[in-house]
């Protein structure tokens, strides 16, 4: 379990995370949404000790992230895909880049090649393997960044806006991979996005505003007040928006949120 207990953080004197508490269990798909500058990436970097809280405590499977002797163990357990993929490329080719991370973890060459091939196939980036990462298109880079963490098979995976440059099909692909990681492979996932359609199947949603968690709960609990979400800079999925209007007019029941539910409600009338 990754656990945040009353965590606060400041860059210089500017406090950007305030008394944040939540946890991510293995097998859980947790999403984090909030406006630009609300503190999402900072929270992401706090999960594996890349940043350390100035108050409160972050622990991974019971080990505090400020325990220097276990820093490497924690980074191995929690894989982090950054918002800007260019920050994490080091190899001359994509394949080297992926292999480098595995070599660092003393994974044998044969095993490494098997993992790279299977992750490349999963993400549809086989054609990119021999290219230098910096020459790829935006969306291709984003997929390679995801691959570089997936090959390492960490117990927890933190994904910071990894679908922002993908096409509609690519987004769905990544989302189904993420759901599989949590649901079938028992990984703990923290998924950050501005694209709120993508939170629909998550187990737990964290909503941050100005560094504080202002809402925390199931998807429907969070989508219950669309006006509030918009007021703190969060986009509403179109079907949730439609449902909210129909509910205001008392044309569908309060439990209706998503496209399928709207269609069922309307078509049964």
């Amino acid at each position, binding site marked *: 379990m990754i656990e945040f207990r009353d965590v606060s953080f400041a860059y210089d004197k500017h406090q950007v995370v305030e008394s944040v508490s939540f946890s991510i269990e293995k097998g859980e798909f947790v999403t984090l949404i909030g406006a630009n500058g609300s503190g999402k990436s900072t929270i992401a970097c706090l999960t594996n000790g890349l940043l350390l809280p100035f108050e409160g405590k972050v622990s991974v499977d019971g080990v505090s992230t400020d325990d220097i002797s276990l820093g490497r163990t924690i980074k191995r357990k929690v894989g982090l895909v950054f918002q800007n993929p260019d920050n994490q490329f080091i190899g001359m080719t994509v394949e080297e880049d992926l292999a480098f991370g595995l070599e660092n973890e003393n994974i044998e060459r044969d095993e490494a090649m098997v993992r790279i091939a299977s992750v490349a196939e999963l993400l549809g980036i086989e054609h990119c393997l021999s290219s230098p990462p910096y020459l790829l298109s935006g969306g291709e880079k984003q997929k390679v960044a995801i691959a570089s963490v997936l090959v390492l098979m960490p117990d927890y995976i933190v994904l910071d806006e990894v679908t*922002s440059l993908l096409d509609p099909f690519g987004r769905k692909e990544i989302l189904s991979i993420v759901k599989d990681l949590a649901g079938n492979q028992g990984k703990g996932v923290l998924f950050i996005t501005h694209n709120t359609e993508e939170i629909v199947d998550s187990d737990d949603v964290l909503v941050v505003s100005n560094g504080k968690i202002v809402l925390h709960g199931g998807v429907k609990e969070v989508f219950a007040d669309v006006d509030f979400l918009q007021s703190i800079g969060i986009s509403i999925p*179109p079907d949730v928006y439609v449902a909210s*209007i129909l509910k205001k007019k008392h044309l569908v029941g309060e439990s209706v949120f998503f496209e399928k539910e709207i269609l069922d409600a309307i078509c049964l009338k």
Partner: protein
Amino acid sequence: MLEIRNVNVVYDPNTIFRKEALTNVSLQISSGESIAIIGKIGSGKSTLIQLFNGLVKPDEGEVLLDGVDINTKNVSRKEIIRKVGIVFQYPEEQFFAETVFEEVAFGPRNLDFSQKEIKECVYDALRVMGFDPPSIIHRTPFSLSGGEKRRVAIASVIAMRPEILILDEPTAGMDYAGKTSVISHIREGRTGGLTTAFVTHDMEEAFYLANRIIALDSGFIVFDGSPEEFFSNRNLISQIGLEAPFVLRFREKLLDCLGEIPFSKNLETLVDLIGAMIGH
């Protein structure tokens, strides 16, 4: 006016990495248009827009700005930059200045704007992107959040007041307010004669904001026409791996149980129509 004539772009031509990024591409952009450039990842969108200011050079064909081939020696870079402003896909890679003010002021200063104009342009552009200028201008651009960086990057191009504004996935990574800022700038700019072309993966944006859609697939232009026409061509959309906007998909699904529903581009109108049909 911007014109591209029979352009081919090939990356790494004489190596095993040879990649035909654009093939036989031709298009004209007229003043006041608002064009969405769409297509799967790797289809050539960023390559296409980088032709517009000479950053990518065609291996064959020509790029003409107001009738002049921009890739000939005697064309002034400054003149191109004055007319065509481009916001790239990775804005943070362009940052170099120590403060947000200097970052945004760089373009206007380079184009010899007066001190007074520079300040005015910087403040206006930052406001357009939803910032309160006094609270942001002294910060270093490198320490901003991802979405804040993107907004500053867009502001730094808007500040040059280009005639043609080109944006590569401008709303990626932006929150609701940021998206709204970009969208209103494009929309309001258009009524004032600003020409825009933007790359997007957001089909709603393409549908609502553009008056013309250019769709790419593997480096070929496979469609150039109105959003209505494009999004009514289901075969093409699925063939090139895209999808229709929600309002169209939703209406189609409702047809089965509600029968005929008048066509509406607007989601609120569609909801009103449904409301009237099921209201009693």
